[in-house]
């Protein structure tokens, strides 16, 4: 875990880092950050508690506890990662642990949009490709350079394309993943919508 926390800001076009593989389908947000850690009024202390219960059960052999993974920043996961609760605490905990990008077979929807909202790009690949990368990463430490503009990833001996929605990619490249400013620009349109909606006066 990195000692100093610098959140992503602005345009994101390149992410370089060591990969950490976490094997399993349907890993839910209760497992990423158990509910007892949601008793907080900020996100600051979440990094150390990521996967707390899974890590305790595995007594030191969980990927997030292995020494060789401590400075990793690209998480490789399988299918339906982040299902369940909408808690943004889950991607916030991963971010604070040091994760800056996630590559997986598929993601749960709210988790995916929470990742965008805090500046963590999520990429998809086929089941087979994910398994190959996870296997490779077990035998050799994989250091990837992700180029968001070209949706590609390269390492010493690998070179492959990553899938990401075009609209999402644009948001990272332009910095609009941090949506508040963009939404605020249309303030007068919002005011007009407020007046137009048939139910505002009776609800």
């Amino acid at each position, binding site marked *: 875990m990195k000692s100093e926390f610098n959140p992503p800001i602005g345009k994101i076009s390149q992410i370089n880092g060591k990969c950490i593989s976490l094997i399993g389908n*349907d890993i839910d947000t209760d497992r990423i950050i158990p509910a007892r850690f*949601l*008793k907080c009024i900020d996100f600051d202390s979440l990094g150390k508690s990521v996967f707390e219960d899974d890590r305790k059960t595995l007594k030191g052999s969980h990927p997030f506890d292995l020494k060789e993974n401590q400075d990793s920043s690209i998480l490789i996961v399988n299918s339906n990662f982040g299902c369940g609760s909408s808690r943004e605490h889950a991607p916030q905990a991963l971010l604070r642990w040091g994760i800056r990008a996630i590559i997986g077979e598929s993601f749960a*929807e709210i988790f995916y949009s929470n990742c965008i909202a805090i500046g963590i790009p999520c990429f998809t690949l086929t089941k087979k490709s994910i398994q190959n990368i996870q296997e490779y990463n077990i035998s050799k430490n994989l250091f990837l350079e992700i180029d968001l503009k070209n949706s590609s990833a390269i390492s010493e001996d690998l070179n492959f394309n990553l899938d990401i929605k075009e609209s999402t990619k644009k948001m990272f490249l332009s910095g609009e993943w941090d949506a508040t400013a963009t*939404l605020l620009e249309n303030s007068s349109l919002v005011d007009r*919508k407020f007046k137009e909606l*048939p139910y505002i006066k009776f609800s």
Partner: protein
Amino acid sequence: MSQDTLFDKVWDLHKVSSLPGGSDQIFIGLHLIHEVTSPQAFGGLKDKNLKVKFPSRTVATVDHIVPTDNQSRPFKDNLAEQMIGTLEKNCLQHKIRFFNIGSGNQGIVHVVAPELGLTQPGMTIACGDSHTSTHGAFGSIAFGIGTSQVRDVLATQTIAMNKLKVRQIWCENKLSHGVFAKDLVLNIINELGVKAGVGFAYEFAGPAINALSMEERMTICNMSIEGGARCGYVNPDEKTFSYIKNKLCAPKNENWDEALLWWNSLKSDANSIYDDVIKFDASKVEPTVTWGITPGQSVGINQQIPLLEELSPNDQFIAEEAYEYMGFKPGQSIKNTPVDVCFIGSCTNGRISDLRVAANVLKDKKVSKNIKAFVVPGSEKVAIAAKKEGLDKIFKDSGFQWREPGCSMCLAMNSDKLIGNQVSASSSNRNFKGRQGSPSGRTLLMSPAMVAAAAINGKVSDVREFIN
């Protein structure tokens, strides 16, 4: 791409603009907040020096962290006290309506908003909670959001979102006696899978859905997210309108007439186009129990836990993890599985009709020895209504503990938790590893009636043996 469905109509009505990236800016008609996912959002407003744009469109209550045994302030748990205190302060500062403990209207946010008449057809509704899909039962488009989006709704009353596809789930026939909405939705999730709904809104329709009460429809829509769908809805009808009528925040007098006229125009057209349609036979559904660690891993009460080879290759990975965690053998019967704790409550099944059904099973019966059984009404209103009907007495006489309203052991953020590897029979919505407060605790999801039956026998039982 879908066309002329209720989802399309409500989406188009609330669309403010097309954003440069390709997503839409959507106006949120009703924003619900609670103590867990809002403090950082208010913090974010402060950091960006922003104020709440339309305070009247946000409503707050407190549910996740509240104790259910002793709600006097300050709470014994300092962190819980800090969270409710922060919400009180934020609501006061930003002039947001807050239904606090003791107001008579506090409770689980997804129980409270419908019973206050806040939830209405044709609205967009967002809340920092994945079970916001519940409100779709009224023909609103409702979905869970994260804390950054809560901040965006507070600041702009809008969010950036890609339009969802629409899948109609057409439910033929009717549920049979002793089979409930919870059983139906568990079966739908089992059949389609826990991630089939990603990218979709689910429209629940057909004779089986039309026959359901509003509270049963809420149970169905509530669990859309367990099938991966962020949003689930039912087209509004007379049952919807009569449920809303005369509620505290419902339109009154001439506004009611106007609202009714508009609501009646709000449904999917007969010839609307869906991205996908699934047919489902409700008459084949049996009382259902989960055996695994996702809500998709369920079987009928008289079925066996599936063998690995009976499952699709994609489901085998998580099944092996589930057998091990749950301590079940493939092929074993789910019926007669001993349980330790019985929990009735949650935004899925903590409403008055749920308590009535469970009390009907428990009347003149006793909870089995060594079982801890407790019922947590979904709201103060539910608790008051239940007491008026004498349901609290039936529960207490049977050996159930009668608690104060809140989310309680659905997610165990208060002191209601499983201990060690206890097995719970639970009317809640998630059987994830560790969900109910113990890292090795095991959850069997089922209807409230089935929880009551399990409490009496001390093991998973067929509720149809208890009701006429």
